[in-house]
């Protein structure tokens, strides 16, 4: 009797979390799915209209822009953050004396929210008052950097700021990974005469595979939620050039009073996210179990 209970205790302990998630995540996803099939405008309604919202959604030019932007932004952001994080970690791992000072410098942006830093970045990137103007003032007249004002380049400024914010975190993850590499392996490679560059390229970096995967999870989750960033930096502009699904969803649901369309965009976005994340998680847990 007591031992039966013992068997159930773990499940009981997990149950609250599981129930919370079940309701507050999966329940809400279902609810959104339902909303996306209704004619909800300002507040949820029960007016069933089938897939009309989805049809409407895919006719909207912004939605396509948002999707393309997410692809572009997500890819660049994840790729650059990972590479930069790795590079910084490698540089910092060279027995750098000032590591204690540099590490928090690289790490601190993660501590700030974009409500906070958005304005600073906006100014900094603004050609009229930011870096370009400063360079001009310092005598470098031909310096030009006006991406934030350029419809085709603005999305890259979002990438720059986003990378700024999270690459330090990725750096910390890689640093931890590097410090965990068996030193005997490094010695072995050194004995074979491999240059440092080659040791990293051929041995250390391939060994960082699990870290790349973890970084991917963290970065992907940040990319998906990149809302504050865009709002603070470009407000989705110039024009709607930097619209992302998150801003799209928010504006349709809350400022344009087309909650149905907003919900359908959320569902599409979730489908996309899950179709990328679930295979990843699956493979991750597979390899984790076999260890």
């Amino acid at each position, binding site marked *: 009797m007591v031992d039966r209970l*013992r068997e159930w*205790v*773990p499940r009981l*302990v*997990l149950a609250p*979390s599981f129930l*919370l*998630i*079940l309701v*507050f*995540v*999966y329940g*809400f*996803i279902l609810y959104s799915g339902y909303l996306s099939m209704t004619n909800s405008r300002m507040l*949820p309604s029960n007016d069933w209209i089938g897939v009309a919202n989805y049809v409407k959604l895919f006719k909207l030019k912004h939605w396509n822009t948002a999707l393309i932007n997410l692809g572009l932004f997500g890819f660049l952001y994840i790729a650059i953050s990972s590479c930069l994080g790795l590079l910084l970690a490698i*540089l910092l791992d*060279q*027995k750098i004396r*000032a590591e204690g000072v*540099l590490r*928090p410098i690289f790490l*601190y*942006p993660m*501590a700030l929210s974009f*409500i*906070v*830093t958005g*304005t*600073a970045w906006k*100014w*900094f990137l603004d050609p009229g008052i*930011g870096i370009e*103007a*400063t360079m001009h003032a310092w005598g470098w007249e031909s310096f030009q950097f006006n991406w934030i004002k350029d419809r085709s380049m603005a999305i890259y400024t979002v990438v720059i700021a986003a990378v700024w914010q999270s690459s330090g975190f990725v750096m*910390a*993850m890689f*640093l*931890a*990974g590097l*410090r*965990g590499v068996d*030193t005997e392996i*490094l010695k072995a490679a*050194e004995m074979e005469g491999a240059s*440092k560059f080659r040791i990293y390229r051929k041995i250390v970096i391939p060994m960082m595979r699990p870290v790349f995967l*973890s970084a991917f*999870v963290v970065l992907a989750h940040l990319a*998906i939620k990149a*809302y*504050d960033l865009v709002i603070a930096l470009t407000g989705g502009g110039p024009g709607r050039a930097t619209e992302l699904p998150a801003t799209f*969803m928010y504006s349709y*649901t809350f400022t344009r009073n087309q*909650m149905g369309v907003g919900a359908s965009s*959320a569902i599409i976005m979730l489908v996309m996210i899950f179709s990328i*994340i679930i295979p990843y*998680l699956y493979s*991750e*847990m597979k390899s*984790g*179990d076999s260890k």
Partner: protein
Amino acid sequence: MNQSVSASSATHGNRMIRALIYASLILFAIYYLLPLYVMVINSFKPLEEIRGGGMMNLPQQWTIDSWLTAWSSAQIGVKPTGLKPFFINSILMVVPAVLLSTFLGALNGYVLTKWKFRGHGIVFGMLLLACFIPFQIVLIPMARILGILDLAGTTAGLVLVHTVYGLGFTTLFFRNYYDAFPTELVRSAQIDGASFFQIFRRILLPNSAPIFVVTIIWQFTNIWNDFLFGASFADFDSIPMTVALNNLVNSSTGVKEYNVHFAGSILAALPTLIVYIVSGRYFVRGLMAGSVKG
């Protein structure tokens, strides 16, 4: 771990290369510091000087007025209270939410690694997927539920929201950490007759410091910086710091006091900044201990 690839670079390393490494590190440091630089120097300028342009220049006239204003007398709504009172609100919200979500995450990680049961993988997968849900879609149904629970507009409600949406990551962190935690210790304690909770409290918890650091930093940062939930679910007496900061910074048709905005921004970010700087070292260690899976 104490030996890096550069073990013998002192012998064979090349001064040029080291100079290059330092140079690039410093360049990157500048990239990371620039926005902070812009914020800090402009927060010390009088407003006229900012209007005059030259965002990157040092103040001609230093003043800390904007800091004082932002902290204690800036207009946040009708009352010129500054950010001060909202600081308390944020603390009241962040501390329990961080503790709760971390604690639940620790328990979940404990169960998912040391007390596996059929289907534990699926449960974990579901918890993990929850990390990726965009918060915009949960606002309305969450509001409804908070209303039903009679938690609408309360700090307790915010704590609940943040706890729920932090669970995915905290569980992930602790699972990875406890996965590497020697199972034999748990077995040994079982034989010693310790109960499920005794084992957790006496054996696991005292040895989880590194991962607690990581998790608490992560949760603290995310919750402290949240705006969306704060704006949507807070009442007049539970408005968190970020919403207040937003009120200070984002007024639509009023005069914009950038120096105050920047000072306020830095003030609002101070707790997280301090947490990062003070515990940065432990953070990397914690990530290592968590076998950097998460």
